[in-house]
């Protein structure tokens, strides 16, 4: 019995954190945010050298063969550094979809390339989370037609994992005839979100890609977004505490005023238990399947709420400076803002949690 991280898990997280602090400092994040595509190929390459793209892909396909817990630790490190790279969609949800639902040949064709970082996959499952009028991909006689919004990790993708209106999953190559990719501009300039329009695109269905696989990858994605908020929130608290310790007004550091000190304490008190919740949700995904959807819902909705509170409060601790681009705190603020909305906002997710427990009709 040990509710905590192993030394290997700590080493993995430390390695990613250290790499990002050296190779993806705020200056680099600013450069990427100002560029046309919110994605850093250099940082992606460096993370590939650490094995990040293959974190959950089994060793037989060239990956690290680790669990969702390790993936969550990587996601936390990426959120901490507002790293302008793919992760939840490209390196967790997409490979997981192929692992759970793909045929042998689909797995052999894609998993080794995804594990090495030689190919990148994006995920288009937003419609399975929350339907929207005029949006949706219809599969008919082996062809896909329609629109998918909020495609995760869309930039530079070679492959898309697409959910149709029944929740079944398909693979679509980025160069497939009839496919148009449109980037969506969001508040967060560190992650890439896109739109797909399809007119008679040849479908390559995942034979095991039914509703259950879709459910699993959404659970996994939600845990990754929760972990990203955990990391981003941790960074925002650290910055608030550091700023309050050095900023002097009325002849003393503002952190010695209880009004400011208590804001920091409230942030820490709210966020610290979230760490254990994210750990447990990731652990349950691999080891307690009965609880996995409920815990993914709790992690996603609770981290979204606490993340919003921390993002706002940390900004306020920084006073006017927190509101400016000079401090750069807004990169974390927006990162949390994006994480909160993707794959279902907290109210939607909590309603799912009620259904999962049989508290309301399915």
């Amino acid at each position, binding site marked *: *019995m*040990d*509710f*905590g*991280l*192993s030394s290997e898990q700590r080493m993995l997280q430390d390695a990613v954190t250290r790499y990002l602090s050296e190779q993806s400092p705020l200056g680099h994040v600013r450069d990427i945010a100002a560029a046309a595509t919110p994605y850093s190929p250099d940082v992606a390459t460096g993370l590939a050298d650490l094995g990040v793209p293959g974190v959950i892909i089994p060793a037989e396909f060239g990956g690290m063969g680790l669990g969702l*817990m390790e993936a969550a630790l990587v996601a936390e490190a990426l959120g901490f550094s507002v790293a302008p790279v793919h992760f939840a969609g490209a390196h967790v949800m997409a490979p997981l979809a192929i692992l759970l639902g793909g045929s042998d040949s689909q797995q052999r064709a894609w998993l080794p390339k995804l594990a090495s970082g030689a190919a990148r996959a994006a995920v288009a499952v937003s419609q399975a989370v929350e339907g929207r009028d005029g949006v949706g991909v219809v599969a008919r006689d082996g062809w896909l037609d329609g629109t998918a919004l909020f495609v995760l990790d869309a930039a530079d993708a070679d492959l898309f994992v697409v959910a149709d209106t029944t929740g079944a999953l398909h693979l679509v190559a980025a160069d497939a005839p009839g496919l148009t990719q449109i980037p969506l501009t969001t508040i967060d300039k560190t992650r890439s979100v896109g739109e797909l329009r399809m007119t008679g695109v040849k479908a390559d269905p995942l034979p095991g890609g039914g509703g259950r696989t879709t459910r699993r990858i959404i659970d996994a994605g939600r845990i990754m977004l929760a972990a990203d908020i955990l990391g981003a929130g941790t960074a925002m*608290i650290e910055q608030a*505490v550091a700023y*309050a*310790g050095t900023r002097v007004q009325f002849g*003393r*550091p503002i*952190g*010695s*005023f*209880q009004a400011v*000190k*208590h804001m*920091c*304490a*409230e942030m*820490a*008190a*709210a966020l*610290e*238990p*979230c*760490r*254990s*919740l994210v*750990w*447990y949700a990731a*652990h349950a995904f691999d*080891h307690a399947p009965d609880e996995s959807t409920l*815990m993914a*819902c*709790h*992690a996603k*909705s*609770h981290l979204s*709420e606490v993340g919003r509170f921390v993002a706002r409060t940390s900004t306020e601790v920084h006073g006017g400076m927190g509101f400016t681009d000079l401090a750069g705190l807004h990169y974390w603020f927006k990162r949390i803002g994006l994480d909160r909305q993707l794959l279902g906002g*907290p*109210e939607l997710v*909590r*309603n799912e*949690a*009620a259904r999962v427990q049989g*508290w*309301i009709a399915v």
Partner: protein
Amino acid sequence: MDLTYSAEHQAFRREVLVFLEAHHHAAPKGGGAAQRPSAEAVAWQKLLIAHGYAARTIPKAYGGYGAAPDILKSRIIGEEFARAGVPPGLQSQGISMLVPTLLELGTEDQKRQWIGPTIHGEVIWCQGYSEPGSGSDLASLQTRATEDGDDFVINGQKIWTSTAREADMIFCLVRTEPDKGKHDGISYLIFSMKTPGIEVRPLVTMTGHAEFNETFFTDVRVPKSQIVGKRGQGWFVANATLKHERGMLGDPGQLESRFLALAELMRTETAGDGRIMDNPILRDRLLRLQAELAAMKFNGLRVLSASANGGDAGLARLIVKLQACELAHQISALAIDALGELGVLYESSPHLRAHGGWQQAYMFQLGLIIGGGTAQIQKNIIAERGLGMPREPKLATDGGRL
């Protein structure tokens, strides 16, 4: 992350289950933790100590079971007793605060005299710390103990002395050295509540019950030998016990049973056209609390694991009192809101739900948010000890006693 128990711990869990199966009928009915335990409860406590399910780590020489500390075994006992709906051993300020203090800092005579009868429920204690003028700033306490021959003579007033009416004994902070700095002039005394000069007045709270008392001392004579720790070290001695009190106030097991009762209420009670659970706004609030509860439960496991491995979870431990007391209060608040007009019924009103327990809890839990170190004091502790933030600059007041 390994949430499985070792073979030794699994075997221990089976032992606990066998015990519960054999003896659950002997458990006392009803709680009443704050009062003097019934003969039934005292007999139950004796049985639990004999089997190592209460006073588990207290040495045999002092009347305990004498097991080596094992946090996981303590947790298994707690879990299985809760699951079986069987009351655990006695819980009181004497057992949770005085006994650990004596074990740490008492003389051999004090340990032999007091620990055994206390853990067996034969001697009931109350705590004399807070004063009307010394709440959050406890170290400014003014109750005086002056020397007179072999005795201290005590004059002053304490407040929030729960169980003072039932108590046989008090552990009490008094000022013995008024000329020293405020933390250095305090001593920790233990004495009988039957000593002449003690008056106890019940303190009725917003719940309508007198859960606390005010206790007045007029020329109360206490032999000097009844000091715990050295003269002037009372602040240090008291802090050893406050640590134990704060641990008591954030038990996630209790939160979980309150939450389950709330979810059951919302599934079964109807309001308007359907079950309360069908109201999306109330349901959303319920799920929000459930997520927070899950976070606190796993945070508790993390803190437990850290101390089982000889470490300290730091921030994860420091936030428990603040967060758990607030969460408990919010669970009761939602139950009241879910009941609508029925939520206001109290005492022995017709149509009362859950014996009026939700309103009672809602009010009492506000007391817990304030007691044992207010929420604001907790935030100072989290910020200063957990986050390393600068302390408030001290003002030169209080006659130079800082």
